[in-house]
């Protein structure tokens, strides 16, 4: 299987790419548009510098060279959601070229080019009528074009997730496929090992990473079946239907549009001096790979570190906790454990809107690391804070903060043994592991305040 992916990513700018209209997801239809983005006669585009900056940032994150001179072009076609009957895009002299994404295996997926362009509007079908919402017209996009280096659905997933992670950390885009701020078109062809490349088809309408994987698997099998039956794959554009899991033909090669690209006469070539690229490079936030290395060097476990590095805001929260004096390992574990568990969807984790301040979180970590609160108790307290939005002070009284006294703990251990005579008998007969049978009761009954190490000593004493 040979596959290349074209990824459209919506840039996180405040305004549109060629006018001052705000970029707002879910606004009332046709409330975020003007003379320019509705293509009034005589209206001219004015390039948003921040869109160029974010495009360059994306290029730098993806190891591209940034062209010192970049050119916009018109892509001409008629469609009701395209007010000017052309999309301002780029053809010759794209913003960035020749980058790559490195997969875990060490394999590099080449990025041929990244170019800037404007989004089109949206058709809304209601019954027999079709309405047009122009709010999305002129929303800035970058198109990231990979070389056909991807050879499995799994690699595609890894490639897309790598793009998402890097672009989110750099603040280029929130890359949400469900909301359409990231869209992938997958080109796919099949050929025998060593044989020349086969005819490719293009898959569209892929709304999630898993949809990409499933659609690719389906299309791979479909093409294999055609080829093994002696047939020929027709070059075409296919739409993936999530419900049926099948790919449906949208248009064949004969219907391929001639976009009549030519340089956009309303926008002179943009010159990007190396000094500007250097400046943007300096502003580049630390990317996931760098943070991962830093976190593990601070003693965070590999698994927790990589879970943290999936979400920029989680990393930022974690780093704030460290600033308030929290120990790295415990803080990381509490975040990827308890905090993540409270954020149910992927979007929730991306947004990372939580009711616990970094200062409170740091205090909890300090209690745990200082032996004032055991981990179970910390998880319970944190869970309550996340759920009810109460500050740490209201959750935990001063007396509760100390661990259970030795006397009370001894009392609790006696009770545990009394309630579980079988375990006690086992232990006494030499089955040392049977001691584990008491811990659950002690943890629960102490509200997490029991020091389990001390409890172990007491239990051993009592069971002698």
């Amino acid at each position, binding site marked *: 299987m040979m596959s290349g992916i074209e990824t459209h990513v919506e840039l996180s700018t405040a305004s549109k790419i060629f006018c001052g209209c705000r970029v707002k997801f879910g606004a009332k239809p046709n409330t975020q548009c003007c*003379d320019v983005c*509705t*293509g*009034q*006669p*005589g*209206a*001219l*585009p*004015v*390039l948003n510098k921040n869109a160029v900056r974010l495009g360059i940032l994306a290029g730098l994150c993806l190891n591209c060279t940034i062209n010192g001179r970049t050119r916009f072009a*018109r892509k*001409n076609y*008629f469609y*009701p959601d395209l*007010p*000017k*009957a*052309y999309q301002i895009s780029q053809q010759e002299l794209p913003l960035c070229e020749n980058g790559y994404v490195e997969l875990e295996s060490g394999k590099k997926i080449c990025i041929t080019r990244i170019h800037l362009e404007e989004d089109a509007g949206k058709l809304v079908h209601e019954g027999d009528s*079709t309405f*047009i919402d122009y709010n999305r017209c002129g929303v800035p996009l970058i198109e990231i074009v990979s070389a056909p280096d991807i050879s499995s659905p799994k690699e595609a997933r890894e490639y897309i997730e790598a793009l998402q992670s890097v672009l989110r950390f750099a603040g280029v885009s929130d890359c949400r496929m469900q909301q359409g701020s990231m869209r992938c078109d997958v080109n796919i062809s099949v050929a025998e090992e060593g044989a020349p490349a086969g005819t490719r088809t293009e898959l569209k309408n892929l709304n999630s990473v898993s949809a990409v994987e499933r659609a690719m698997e389906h299309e791979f099998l479909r093409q294999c079946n055609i080829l093994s039956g002696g047939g020929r794959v027709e070059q075409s554009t296919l739409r993936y239907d999530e419900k049926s899991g099948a790919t449906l033909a949208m248009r064949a090669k004969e219907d391929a549009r*001639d976009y*009549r*690209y*030519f340089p956009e*006469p*309303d*926008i*002179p070539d943009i010159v990007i001096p190396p000094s500007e690229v250097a400046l943007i490079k300096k502003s580049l936030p630390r990317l996931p790979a760098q943070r991962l290395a830093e976190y593990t060097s601070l003693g965070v476990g590999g698994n927790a570190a990589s879970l943290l590095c999936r979400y920029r805001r989680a990393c930022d929260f974690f780093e704030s906790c460290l600033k308030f004096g929290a120990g790295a390992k415990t803080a990381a574990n509490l975040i990827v454990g308890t905090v993540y568990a409270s954020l149910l969807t992927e979007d929730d984790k991306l947004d990372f809107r939580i009711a616990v301040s970094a200062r409170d979180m740091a205090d909890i970590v300090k209690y745990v690391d200082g032996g004032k609160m055991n981990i179970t108790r910390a998880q319970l307290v944190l869970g309550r804070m996340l759920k009810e939005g109460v500050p740490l002070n209201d959750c935990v009284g001063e007396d509760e903060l100390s661990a259970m006294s030795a006397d009370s703990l001894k009392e609790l251990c006696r009770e545990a043994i009394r309630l579980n005579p079988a375990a006690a008998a086992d232990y006494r007969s030499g089955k040392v592991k049977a001691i584990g049978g008491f811990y659950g009761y002690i943890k629960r009954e102490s509200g997490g305040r029991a020091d389990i190490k001390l409890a172990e000593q007491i239990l051993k004493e009592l069971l002698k």
Partner: protein
Amino acid sequence: MKGRIATLSRLLRERKLSAVELTESYISRASRSNRLLNAYVHECFAQARLAAERAQKLIDQGAASPLTGIPVAVKDNICTRGVPTTCCSRILQGYVPPYSAEAWSKLERCGAVLLGKTNMDEFAMGSSSETSCFGAPINPLNTSLSAGGSSGGSAAAVAADIAAYSLGSDTGGSVRQPAAFCGIVGFRPTYGTISRSGLVAYASSFDQIGPLASSVEDAAIVYDAIRGRDCADMTSVSSASAPSLFEPDIKSITVGVPKEFFSDGVEEEVKVAVEAAICLYERAGARIKQVSLPLFSKALAAYYIISCAEASSNLGRYDGVRYGMRADCDGGVADMMAKTRTKGFGKEVRRRIMLGTFVLSGGYKGQYYKRACGVRAMLSAALEDIFNGCDVLVAPAAPTAPFALGTERRSAAEAYQADICTVPASMAGIPAVSLPCGMTKSGMPVGMQVMAGRHNDGLALSVARYFEREADISFRLSAEVSREL
């Protein structure tokens, strides 16, 4: 030719005339004569009266500029908020723009009084204004002749003095050629010095707004008022803030005479008049230098390829979906678009859209569009080279004197020949003034162009004014027109 703006402005400032009186006199001239002239296609006299009152307030406050209270006509492809802007096309019937072009906004802020929108070739595609959906304007000097195009209405309005001055747009010569036909001054400035924001695009890399006026001085006053970098137009450039006109030392000027502009395609009477004008400069002590622009013969074809290519894209937005005309249709949206565009556009516009679509199509783009761009780059370089050896170029503004109306029956290729003299400056984006330099045996005007290097707009205007003053040429309006005024 005598300037009007300075005189009228002085009368207004000295209270010998009120802005309202001035506007009323223009309105009455326009309402009497426009049926014959067909210069205005949308009149906005009620708004003009209000604007005149506002202008009078500015004058009373001592806040007047030279253009305050002076009545102006604006070509129908320059957006004027609240006043129809239809490019004289059925497809934009009833379109009232929600915003104003920057050039018009600047005039409006000066207190200019808009009388109406002027007739033009549909979407500025033509050289006789006959492709207008409102029918052609006539030449005020001879009612059977064309006022030229595409800014024919703007030229006719100034020539008949039913507007003190006007704005036009020049893509391949659309300001300069009608000015030449009507015996007035037309100026195409350096590309980018006047914002294109709000100028309905025909061929974006050529389109420039320019003034049409009764004297070079008037044209310079208007140019100085509307030029300047505009953040709404990325192709706009800043220009020096000093007034454009100055007193040139003619003895230190080298006048280039490009021989190809005097080739076979140019009428004898035109050549004779322009050559006489060159003699005037020579007698004044200017150095005359014969120069050559071998690419002249390729310029017209290259211009039509590039301008049609851009037009095919620029005119895509008129699809009946958002504004303007929408054809009745039972089919789907694609059908509606096709029907709207077929009915809404005139024949010449459809021809250029198809020509442009063809030259950009896969398989033909290299052969046509890209080669034409190559010719354009070479021509610009050649002109730059020529301006290293001379200050200005003097050449005919049009290959013929005003031709008769009814020429739309000629072939397109013949009609395009009307642009051969004006297209080179358009290709290179250099400034060019068109002004009357003499007349034919029948008393019709012959226009010449004074071209200069990029950003030497002031030099072109100043050298042109020198001739204007020395030669003192004027024309008589046709008796039919005079009777109506």
